[in-house]
């Protein structure tokens, strides 16, 4: 199950997000790291330093693309310029799969630059799946959709979030980037049992897993990616790994970013759960 058609039949281990603050460390010290995830939009440019650094990283490391503005769930056509630039980047990185979020964020060509929550309706699932297929066919690379953290729910929803996710990925025949921190954040904000979510996801479609930290406020939790992973999220990760197997795992840390070693060490804590899964498989 870990290597599947949704992640290009790869067996990636534990990676971290490639962030500018770590460029110098990575290029001069060349630390061991299974793979890096890049934010596609940061490199969908014509030239200059970001692309030169990316090329240097690509010479030595495995890189997977992760997007933040495809907005599969927006009720408008994909932006052609976005797709053209994304395809150029896919050719450059040779990413074995590509992910973006199960959300919306643009309306009538205006962008919010946020990951806005979907109404969980059959109409939305159908439209979103259609767009995922269109994007995948254009890019010619497997696509995985990521569940987002959310702070609002809609009256029009006709199913749970995990039912919606399964509906979309079945209709689109695409992969899942399962973000267990997002599941935790949303479970706290919407009062559901996060294990119900993890236990219901179409395990055979999981291409990758995200882990991250978040910030707790008095009445809600925000997905800020600026803290270590908390124990309840590791527990969800453990359960996810039991269901999906030894899957490519990525730690996101986007704000108040500590040293490379600190971020990488935090990510490597996932090994504890991955190795127990390997043992269980061996037994």
């Amino acid at each position, binding site marked *: 199950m870990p290597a599947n058609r949704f992640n290009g039949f790869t067996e990636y281990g534990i990676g971290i997000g490639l962030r500018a603050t770590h460029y110098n460390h990575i290029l001069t010290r060349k630390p061991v790291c299974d793979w890096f995830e890049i934010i596609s939009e940061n490199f969908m440019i*014509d030239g200059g330093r*970001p692309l030169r650094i990316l090329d240097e990283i690509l010479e030595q490391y495995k890189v997977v693309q992760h997007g933040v503005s495809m907005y599969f769930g927006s009720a408008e056509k994909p932006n052609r310029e976005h797709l053209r630039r994304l395809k150029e980047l896919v050719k450059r990185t040779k990413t074995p799969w590509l992910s973006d979020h199960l959300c919306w964020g*643009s309306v009538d060509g*205006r*962008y919010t*630059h946020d990951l*806005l929550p979907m*109404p969980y309706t059959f109409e939305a699932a159908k439209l979103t799946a259609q767009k995922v297929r269109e994007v995948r066919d254009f890019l010619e690379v497997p696509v995985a959709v990521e569940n987002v953290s959310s702070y609002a*729910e809609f009256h029009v929803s006709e199913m749970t979030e995990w039912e919606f996710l399964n509906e979309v990925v079945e209709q689109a025949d695409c992969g899942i980037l399962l973000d267990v921190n997002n599941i935790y954040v949303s479970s706290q904000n919407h009062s559901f049992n996060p294990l119900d979510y993890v236990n219901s996801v179409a395990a055979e479609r999981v291409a990758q897993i995200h882990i991250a930290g978040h910030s707790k406020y008095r009445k809600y939790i925000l997905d800020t990616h600026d803290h270590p992973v908390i124990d309840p999220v590791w527990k969800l990760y453990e359960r996810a790994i039991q269901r999906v197997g030894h899957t490519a795992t990525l730690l996101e840390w986007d704000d108040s970013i500590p040293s490379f070693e600190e971020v990488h060490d935090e990510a490597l804590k996932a090994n504890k759960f991955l190795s127990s899964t390997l043992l269980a498989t061996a037994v």
Partner: protein
Amino acid sequence: MRLAALQRTMARAVMQPLTSAERMQNRAPGGKSMGAYASRFIKPNDRLTSFERLEIYNRQYWFRLLSSMIEDFPGLRAVLGDKRFETMSKAYLVDCPSRSFTLRNLGGRLESWLRKHPKWAGPKQALAVDIARLEWADIEAFDGKAEPALRSEDLSSEAGAKLKLKLQPYLRLLELRYPVDDLLLEVRKEYEDTDFASNAFQERHKRKRVQAVAKLKPAKIFLAVHRVDDSVYFRRIEREEFVILSALRDGKPLGKAIEVAFRESRVPAQERAVSVQRWFQNWATLGWFCR
């Protein structure tokens, strides 16, 4: 509510400016109560009302976009002051919401918007426009396309005055009324220092920044914003250099570009050939010509 309608309804609220206390407005788009507007499509929960849940997104939208403006236009912020810069940015983003998948392009319409709306910069309008132009040129030069540099063997010996030379796409040419290049470098130096600075140190630098802006007098400059080894530099050039390069960029042949440059030039006739030779040598060394 259908998907498209729901998304339009929510986006209108999310993109509506915050109050001065950085909260969501009580009035929804259209003038009705925002509480009623939000509860039409967002469920409340045991801790948050529909209004409060929508407000999270409204605040995130503005915090994210204003942060991006601050990051991209530190010089303009220094010119206008923090408060006026924030008010100006909000007005700009209401008139010119992002139409790009990347925040990199957020400030792309700022220069033209500032020209049309002089009230936001008040008496510093010309200075504000100049520094906004420079900061946008800096963004474009940073990640603009670089073509392979022109080699001597690429030049046709027969072309002569009809030769057409192509400039690197990342090269930006600016005619400015204020020497804002020095100001921007000063502002950036201050930002670099603040990472480890004490409060007192920061205060001294803030005063220095204000003084730097206050003493800036109009003085026309011509600037090439370019790239060397992936770093962006501002190079002051002479008026004639600016005219030649601009003409080449517009596709004019070399002979015509030089002719236009010296039409109203103060460079003595006997020095022109030497000057042109020197300029071309510099431009070629900097890799400004491409194939």
